[in-house]
């Protein structure tokens, strides 16, 4: 199975996590109304092929333990409050990565009575990862870009 294409990103990730967060990066996933395609690609990051745990990245159960939120879906009416509460509960510096076309701008669902039309309509977003769904390696790159932004604009409070 192919893995060579992600090597550069992997190396950079390891280095950046150590630089800006000290040791590890904890992520909370929020499904804000996705079709589950992005969610499954995120789950694939944990499979033995991508195995993101080897970089010190882990998906955690509570936003209170999380440095970063990966949000999928265009934020449905029924999940707006859940997203707001999860964002409020996340630990600073609260990096937010919008994963997938729906999260980036509503996708095919657009802006309707049931759908807000993008994560940034509800909470601030640091990095947008387009794709329907984005491949696991694209999500990895999005995580890395968010870490890059962390250095300049916000400081990691540890």
């Amino acid at each position, binding site marked *: *199975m*192919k893995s060579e294409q992600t090597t550069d990103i992997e190396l950079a990730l390891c280095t950046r996590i150590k630089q800006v967060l000290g040791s590890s990066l904890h992520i909370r*996933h*929020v*499904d804000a*109304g*996705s*079709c*589950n*395609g*992005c*969610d*499954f*690609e*995120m*789950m*694939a990051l*944990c*499979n*033995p*092929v991508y195995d993101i745990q080897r970089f010190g990245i882990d*998906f955690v*159960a*509570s*936003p209170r333990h999380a440095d970063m939120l990966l949000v999928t*879906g*265009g934020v*449905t*009416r*029924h*999940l707006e409050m*859940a997203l707001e509460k*999860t964002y409020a509960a996340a630990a600073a510096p609260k990096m937010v990565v919008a994963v997938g076309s729906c999260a980036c701008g509503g*996708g*095919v*669902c*657009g*802006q*309707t*009575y*049931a*759908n807000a039309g993008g994560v940034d309509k509800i909470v601030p977003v640091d990095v947008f990862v387009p794709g*329907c*769904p984005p*491949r696991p390696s694209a999500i990895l790159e999005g995580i890395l870009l968010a870490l890059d932004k962390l250095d300049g604009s916000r400081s990691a409070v540890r």
Partner: protein
Amino acid sequence: MNQLSKKQLVARLLQSFGKKMLSSRPVQEHETELVIDKADLPEVCRTLVQEKKGRLFTMVGNDERELSGHFALYYVFAFDQLQHLITVKTLLEEADPVFPSISAQIPAANWYEREVKDLLGLRALGHPDRRPLILHGDWPEDQYPLRKDFSAALPVSRQPDRGTSMQYSGRDVTEIPVGPIHAGIIEPGHFRFGAVGDTVLHLDAKLFYTHRGLEKSAEGLPLTKALFTAERICGVCALSHAVAFAQAVEAAAQLTPPPRALYLRSLFLELERLYNHIGDLGNLCAGFGFAVGVSHGSRLREQLQQLNEELAGHRYLRGVIQLGGLRLDVTPAELSRLLTVLEQVEADFDELMDIILSHDIALDRMATTGVLSLQQANDLEVVGVAARASGRAVDIRRSHPYAAYGQLDVPLVQYTQGDVLARFKVRAEEVKTSLQIIRQIVCQIPAGAIWAPVPEIQPYTRAMGWAESPRGEVCHWLMVGPEQTVFRYRIRSAAYSNWPAVPLTVPGNIVPDFPLINKSFELCYSCCDR
């Protein structure tokens, strides 16, 4: 069965309704529609299900005020022996949009009837559960999104929440609320357990958090564009939905795609089943903390999704289907590469099944857990893996063949215990039958075109398409509007049919078994919520 005798059988079936039947007409080759007065709904539907052994296939509410001045309800029943569908249609006055509920006699109708209340304001009188379903408690009670005069783009205010979840009280009963945001990477739903100690007394599932209004936003779209919506109803059932939608359009246009296209559709549908079933079997092991199973399952799934990407350019097989056929062909070299990869996957899969099914703890956790009885499965018209694990023989590839399944040998996998282990085994054996089907396809696939142009469809033609997704049958009901657009699109997924069954299987089990039971059904939320 030849066409003549089928015609006679259908006619005989309808005879018993006598004067209740105001009119009847054939819709597609496989469907007859009868119109009745709404007062006769309960009796006609009860006769069709309980005496004539039909099963509720889908139910659709439609705002046809601009066509006939009425709202319309369509109850569709499938007769598997006859390979025929019978639609019971009734009209509701705009001034009096109520109808007698059939849910007390036909429990499978419960959600459908609540849904037409939420989305169209058509109220089922005597319905046993008057809580809203699709729209949650803060939705204004007089706004109905699927009415044509409701504009999808206008924001709708929030009301104080009417509180639609069940509340538990009483000595020693603990209420455990979970979700909508869960601990793992899973879709959102709210589960409320009433537990006594470790044992679950009752479970209430509140879903439809991912309701995106897809049916409304599809209205008015050109059919070719609505295909993109169909592919995005669900990530992991994307291809099944795309095929079902394409078939609905093709049925409306009375078009049969070229034989090669039909074979290729079956090929990709089985590839979708394979990566899902193998991934789901691995993931099921997470329900009892068996990391070896999870890792191997997800590795094999990844291998299959990389194969999808190689063949179709997409890990979830989006962009494969087009109306009238397929967008892409598969070369002989790709087919032989496909067989090589599947051989490797099969060897690893067999080894994995040996590991799991010879592990005492795995067996102990799965056997007798989360039992769905045959009676419950029949009453709720459960479909797919869950139905077949409870001894209910439904597989729409066999009963109403589509794509190339009529030319293929599709064995029925069936167990009777209805527990987590039975659902595990059904999936495991279906992996093997999928592999067999793929090998048949590779041997038999004819040469030729992979696409035919779709003829123009008369406005307000309606048709249905269906497919056996990895989770069970999906049914797409379509009414075409003017200029080849969508007038009404009702998506009934396997998850929609099966979700009401999940809470029934939990009482009597311990709370920590819920994730395992839930994973054994492995239902999508997005498919269900739309």
